[in-house]
């Protein structure tokens, strides 16, 4: 009989010291960053007082200038729809060129760089540049959101193409199909449902951003929102915000429906 090993003490849920130190470091960072940004209790309490007055001026929401709000909202929707359509149209070739399994490296890498460039600037910065280049108005907003859509859709589209099964592509090619037919019959059916997913997501996202490009002169409801804000008409601001939130809710329901249709 071999001598029995003494049973080692095992704790059911052993403390994880590495994780604890990590959380501690995170807490230290929060305190440090807060002090760097000048957060203090006095500012918070002063802010809460302001916030009280601010909320009091917001209620009840003032819909009396509904004509102005309606025309702004309609323009925002127009910007979003047009930007999404042309953004997707341009993303199709760009995404295809960026897919590493279908295109040679010397094309795919520069295309990926271009996509990264489109993605890294916030739409508002792009909108500022377009407002300078083509003047105030909805067109600048449309152009800014097209750039944002290209950055987002082409990247996801390229990834979707990279994940397809090449067996179907090969089968279509084996029947003697050319490049275009291979794309339409071999690649398109595999990526369409995911693609509709990105497209509806991008429509939602463009709708959200189209309510904002007006702040820098890009057209849409943002202009009315910013004017009301600068005139301290906070009740109109609240009215506009309520309408934006309900618009986005409707858009999410519609895009959920579209995704189910294409499942």
């Amino acid at each position, binding site marked *: 009989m071999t001598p029995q090993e003494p049973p080692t003490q095992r704790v059911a849920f052993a403390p994880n010291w590495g994780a604890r130190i990590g959380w501690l470091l995170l807490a230290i960072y929060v305190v440090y960053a807060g002090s760097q940004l000048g957060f203090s209790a006095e500012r918070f309490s002063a802010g809460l007082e*302001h916030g009280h007055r601010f909320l009091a001026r917001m209620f009840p929401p003032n819909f009396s200038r509904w004509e102005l709000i309606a025309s702004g909202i309609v323009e925002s929707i127009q910007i979003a729809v*047009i930007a999404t359509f042309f953004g997707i149209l341009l993303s199709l070739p760009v995404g295809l060129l960026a897919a590493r399994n279908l295109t040679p490296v010397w094309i795919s890498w520069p295309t990926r760089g271009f996509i990264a460039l489109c993605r890294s600037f916030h739409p508002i910065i792009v909108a500022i540049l377009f407002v300078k280049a*083509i*003047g105030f108005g909805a067109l600048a907003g*449309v152009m800014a959101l097209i750039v944002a859509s290209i950055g987002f859709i082409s990247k996801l589209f390229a990834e979707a193409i990279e994940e397809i099964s090449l067996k179907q592509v090969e089968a279509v090619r084996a029947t003697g199909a050319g490049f275009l037919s291979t794309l339409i019959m071999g690649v398109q059916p595999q990526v369409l449902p995911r693609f509709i997913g990105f497209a509806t997501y991008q429509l939602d996202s463009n709708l959200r951003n189209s309510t904002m490009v007006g702040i820098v002169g890009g057209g849409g409801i943002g202009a009315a929102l910013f004017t009301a804000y600068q005139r301290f008409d906070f009740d109109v601001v609240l009215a506009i915000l309520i309408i934006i*939130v309900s618009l986005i809710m409707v858009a999410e329901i519609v895009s959920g429906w579209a995704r189910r249709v294409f499942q």
Partner: protein
Amino acid sequence: MTVAESLNHNWQRFTPLQRLSRFGFYLFIAVALIASLRTIDVIPEFLYDAPEQMADLVSRMWPPDLSYVRPTLKGLIETLHIATLGTIIAIVMALPVGLLAARNVTPNLALNLFAKFVFVTSRSINSLVWALLFVAVFGPGPLAGTLAIAFRSIGFTGKLFAEAIEESNKGSIEALTAAGASKLQTLVWGYWPQVRPSFWSIALFRWDINIRESAVLGIVGAGGVGVALDTALNLLYWDQVAVVLIAIFAVVILAEIVVTSVRARIL
């Protein structure tokens, strides 16, 4: 039915209802697009000289004014703090709401819908608009920017977090409940280990987005590198604008590389 007839059957990929709804979708898109294109207010004269204006813009931007690097860097550090702190505050607020939204943790439809409403509100108001509201409350500065980032991120992080909780495996939860664990204990020892990878991935993903978003908050006075951008824009110093844009581009690319490498390690 004879064999010949059954072989002759005309196979179709979609049912009539599917085809009808797809057709309806395309029709809807076409009508929306045509209606938008026909009614949108565009001044075509502005388009004609757009290439000239663009060339003018680029020539004014080049060469970048290197003396503006110092204020840009200062703003950039502030932007990083705003993005990181904003993400942390957002997660702290999103966790309880995410638990309320997850149907397996909170089996109460009213609370689920309430949490969903919080998410939609948070996501539909743009970070710039959140920043406007917080500037009105707390005054201009990074505090307003941090809170704007935080409130804007609740919806995104909370929604994804609730989905991660709903997808978690019931087995270990049942085992813990059977052993007599309280609700809090099942959360900490049952759900948390299962959602931890997606939690970190959501947090990193949102941090990456927030760096982009916090770089522009300065335009409405909410701190960060956007203040430097706004100053240069208002003074029409396009060579200084170029410095800020290059700096933002570098930081965004750097953040993306960091996030990709960290995700590859923890997932």
